[in-house]
């Protein structure tokens, strides 16, 4: 049995999204910037997709900029706020310790350019509060950027409250909503979100395409210089098939969200309840405010890559924040940020389910994971020391 439980990494494109893309290869192959009929037909398709995506987010079509994905959108949003903040002498940015690297690495680069970065602590409840944001805002803060939900541990941040705090302080607020678009209801106006990044392939759309919502009036700098596409803010001929596929997938995801989430949450909760029975493990992430499909655990005494390989041999596709899966010596910065020590952070497992997963698949996972954990523990000198009392249990 093949069980794909890595939907936070990427999703399978939906039949409808794929079908929606085909005419963009065969009929609407024109360049939307061309003046002729074929080009203008493509432009109409592009405008239509932009309007439909805007509707899903509660914004205007002209507030949507298409990008190559979530990372580019994050880079552009942060770089823009930093550039225009610096012009006013504001060079302080607030973010969180468990952001995606698209955000953290951009902030690292800005730090080298003279910006001061405050990363909010996420140990308490594996989340942040709007109060933390409020307390961190200074006269010279030019941007608050927090993810909408964490990709590894599933915590959903109090975005509307953070938005309200930022609005009151007059500080632009960007959120990386890559894990949330198509999974939770977004209303950028009601939630006071000034900028939002999303990525097509996280909600059964195609890869290589994303979008940045930017509230009208907020200025942008270019990451990609070029032609007049995207109102001059993102050069390069538009990826029309990708954009149209993303629009179809997002519309479907939003239309079926409540129905899908009821199913996905039930599968998630069954997994969490089942895996919690394994001794000396811990659930990572906010147990209440949690992405519908995210399950994240640390198992003491074992290492995550071995776990993934053995699960893969049983047909289960999962992910881990262990060092060995990242190619570095350190385990995931997210697990360290929530206070997991290295020893247990190495033994992490993330399962991310979607509406296409079945009860049978969850049962298969719930049979396989305890077996594999036991097998690996039985060959682990760390586990032996824990059992012999030579080492103290952390979990």
């Amino acid at each position, binding site marked *: 049995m093949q069980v794909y439980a890595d939907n936070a990494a990427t999703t399978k494109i939906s039949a409808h999204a794929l079908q929606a893309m085909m005419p963009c290869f065969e009929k609407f192959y024109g360049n939307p910037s061309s003046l002729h009929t074929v080009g203008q037909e493509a432009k109409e398709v592009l405008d239509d997709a932009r309007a439909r995506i805007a509707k899903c987010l509660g914004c205007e079509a002209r507030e949507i900029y298409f990008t190559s994905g979530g990372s580019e959108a994050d880079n552009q949003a942060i770089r823009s706020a930093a550039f225009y903040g610096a012009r006013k002498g504001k060079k302080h940015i607030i973010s969180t310790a468990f952001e995606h690297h698209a955000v953290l690495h951009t902030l690292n680069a800005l730090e080298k350019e003279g910006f001061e970065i405050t990363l909010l602590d996420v140990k308490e409840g594996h989340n942040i509060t709007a109060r933390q944001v409020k307390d961190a805002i200074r006269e010279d803060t030019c941007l608050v950027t927090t993810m909408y939900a964490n990709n590894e541990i599933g915590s959903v941040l109090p975005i509307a409250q953070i938005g309200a705090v930022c609005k009151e302080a007059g500080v632009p607020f960007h959120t990386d909503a890559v894990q949330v678009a198509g999974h939770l209801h977004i209303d950028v106006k009601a939630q006071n979100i000034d900028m939002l990044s999303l990525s097509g392939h996280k909600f059964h759309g195609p890869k290589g395409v994303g979008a940045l919502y930017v509230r009208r009036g907020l200025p942008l700098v270019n990451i990609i210089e070029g032609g007049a596409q995207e109102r001059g803010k993102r050069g390069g001929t538009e990826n029309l098939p990708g954009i149209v596929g993303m629009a179809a997938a997002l519309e479907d995801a939003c239309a079926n969200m409540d129905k899908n989430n009821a199913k996905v949450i039930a599968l998630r909760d069954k997994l969490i309840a089942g895996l919690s029975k394994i001794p000396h493990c811990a659930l990572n992430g906010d147990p209440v405010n949690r992405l519908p499909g995210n399950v994240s655990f640390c198992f003491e005494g074992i290492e995550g890559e071995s776990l993934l390989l053995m699960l893969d041999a049983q047909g289960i596709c999962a992910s881990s924040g262990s060092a060995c899966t990242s190619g570095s010596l350190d385990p995931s910065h997210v697990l360290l940020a929530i206070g997991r020590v*290295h020893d247990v952070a190495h033994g992490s497992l993330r399962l991310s389910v979607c509406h296409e997963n079945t009860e049978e698949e969850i049962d298969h996972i719930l049979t396989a994971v305890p077996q594999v954990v036991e097998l690996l523990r039985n060959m682990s000198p760390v586990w032996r020391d824990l059992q012999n009392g030579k080492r103290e249990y952390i979990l």
Partner: protein
Amino acid sequence: MALYSEVVMDHFMHPRNVGTIENADGIGEVGNAKCGDIMKIYLKIENDIIVDVKFETFGCGSAIASSSMATEMIKGKPISDALKLTNDAVAEALHGLPAHKLHCSVLAEEAIKGALKDYYDKNGIEYDAKQFPDCAHCDHCH
């Protein structure tokens, strides 16, 4: 192409010589849980021959496969042969390891040498300290 060779996957999925030896003649342990790899090797030695070897490993697929392969390579061999086992030989026998996983084969070599050093120490046998890794002062895990 898969991350690991078929030989690595075979030794990972079906590791040889897993376990411990009671009253082992030599025990070597390298690595630490913080960096995600610990290898522990147990040796039974009779007349300078490694008559039995077992291992326990906390680590990734290549760490487990390296332990398994390395124990196979020294089982039944004289100590003098085991001392000559290099990380390169372990990696080669595994049909290669990804570059960022080569340290796993280094750990296997060091764990075996550590166990042999322990055997020498326990039995008051003199040896040239230079042929053993200085695990206490190595940067890899500290």
